[in-house]
């Protein structure tokens, strides 16, 4: 088991209104999955994704990655866990504007203390993989939205995390660009065994996902496998 979540609860209180964002969610994610958390706005997708990414602490319940419970880790150890085991792709790309595409991709490795030569050697093929080998020295503002999101994907996978969490990764992209990005992530999943978990309400993402976990009012209402989990090296769609 790669990721295990049990009994997750989260309540938001504000201005006299109590909202149960998550109300006893159980979720398991296996290695190599290409899964989506789906549901309408306010269903708890992003809250759940943030909790699985060690960005939120649940009011109740537990999350464990590779058997390591988040509750047993302090803030510094959680930062280390996010740095070494998780990759993040955000809806708004969230690249560092003062760095080039290549530097953005290398940044996580810099935080990990990887030497310059090794960083360069790893970043270049990943940039090629996402189709940006010629745009490595461009800064984010010189790239289109789709290109920026591909840099974000490259940044998320370059240090070979155990799990990539992608929050509405196609929300700011047109359908054509979104389709290409999903193809890219599908290929990374199929060929390299990168595990992806999306939060989305984009039909394109749900169509591409091999498993869809549906949330409503903070509860899992459906969990369906639409295609078998890919074995690394399997061509996409096989």
């Amino acid at each position, binding site marked *: 088991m790669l990721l295990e979540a049990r009994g997750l609860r989260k309540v938001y209180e504000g201005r006299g209104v109590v909202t149960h964002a998550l109300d006893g969610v159980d979720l398991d994610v296996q290695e190599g999955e290409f899964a989506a958390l789906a549901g309408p706005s306010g269903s708890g997708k992003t809250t759940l994704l*943030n909790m699985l990414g060690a960005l*939120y602490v649940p009011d109740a319940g537990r999350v464990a990655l590779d058997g390591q419970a988040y509750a047993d880790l302090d803030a510094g150890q959680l930062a*280390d866990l996010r*740095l070494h085991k998780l990759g993040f792709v955000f809806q708004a790309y969230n690249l*560092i504007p003062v*760095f080039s595409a290549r530097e953005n991709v290398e940044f996580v490795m810099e935080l990990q203390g990887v030497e310059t030569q090794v960083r360069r050697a790893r970043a270049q093929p990943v940039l090629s993989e996402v189709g940006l080998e010629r745009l490595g020295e461009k800064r984010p503002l010189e790239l289109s939205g789709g290109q920026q999101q591909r840099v974000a994907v490259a*940044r998320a996978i370059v240090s070979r995390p155990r799990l990539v969490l992608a929050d509405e990764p196609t929300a700011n992209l047109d359908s054509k660009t979104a389709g290409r990005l999903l193809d890219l992530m599908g290929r990374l999943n199929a060929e390299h065994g990168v595990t992806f978990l999306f939060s989305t309400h984009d039909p394109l993402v749900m169509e591409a996902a091999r498993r869809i976990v549906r949330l409503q009012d903070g509860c899992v209402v459906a969990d369906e496998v639409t295609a078998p989990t890919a074995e690394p090296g399997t061509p996409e769609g096989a």
Partner: protein
Amino acid sequence: MLLRFAWRNLWRNPRRTAIVVVAVSVGIAGSLLSMGVNYGMVDQMVVTAIRTELGHIQVHAAGWEDEPTLQKTLPGGAATVVAALERDPRVRAWTRRVRGDGLVNSPRASAGVRVIGVEGEREGDVSLLREALVAGNWLGAAPRRALLGESLAERLQVELGDKIAVSVQDASGDLTGGGFRVGGLFHTPSSELDRSTLLLGLGEAQVLFALGDAVSEVVVVVHDPDEVEALRTSLAKELGPQVEVRSWAQLEPLLVYMVQSFDMMAWYLYAAVFTAMAFGIANVLLMAVHERTREIGMLRAIGMSRRRVVAMVVLESMWVTGVGLAVGMAVALGATWLLRDGIDLSAFAQGLAAYGVPPRLSPVLRARDFGMPLVIAGVAAGLASLWPALHAARERPAEALRHV
């Protein structure tokens, strides 16, 4: 990595960074130049004091410090002292003097004076008295000649060649005196010296004060001013308790106090300037951090530790302060170079002369003068950045990512 990141962060908003850099630069350049003028003035006072009378070191008979009387002399022409000085390679020059008090009378006025007997040949190597001669001839050109400061000559209403009578109490306590002609007039940077000093040849002064071959003091100048204390110590050890060997700093502690006061003033000045700047830097960094809330959330989300976020913001503060310091110091150095021929303060010449300061004042900046603002600026920049840095580090990544 963080250095590069912090540096680039500065230039996200070049205008804002430029304003901080200019503020730091103007502050540091102004402070340094102001302190340079102060140091230049103190340096001139020290140089004037050393070159007019003090020398670097003076040797007197034991007890002179407590009671500087005519009877406290170095016998035998201070031969033992002279021999020690001749052997020491650190000594650049030395001269002997006789020093006493007297009354000088002209046909029209009289004045109390310090009568100083100097060695005509050697005095010029030790002090600026010889080069301060503005009329007449130096001692030794003719017998029974006296040299007067210009203002003393004015008080006495005498000119070159006029007769003056000098009355003194000699070493035996008898009242005595002698007649001299005004052989020359001098004008030094010290108005006090010019107003109250009469110079005689050493031999004539010894006769006047009935000292035989004894002298009041031996004045020494060294090649390297940094060796003064070492030479003073070794001379004191070699010459023993029969003599007092004192450096200029011991002879004129007020000058040392002034140097120390200016150093203290510099601390206060820099502290005030950088405290004001620190608030400006903190304000700018808070704005910058607030603008980057979402990005900081992303950095925390992808695994950047709080410690590194703090370091990044502190480094941004250090960078902007460092650039400001570099520019400010370069401006201060450039201005000091441009003013190397001195600032014309002739309008205040009379007042400055009372303190031994010449009417053209050159700012002085030494390498060590840059250390103090560096230290204070570093501390100020660090403290200024702590608040915004901790603010940034406290951001919760998930909330920060939602920041608009």
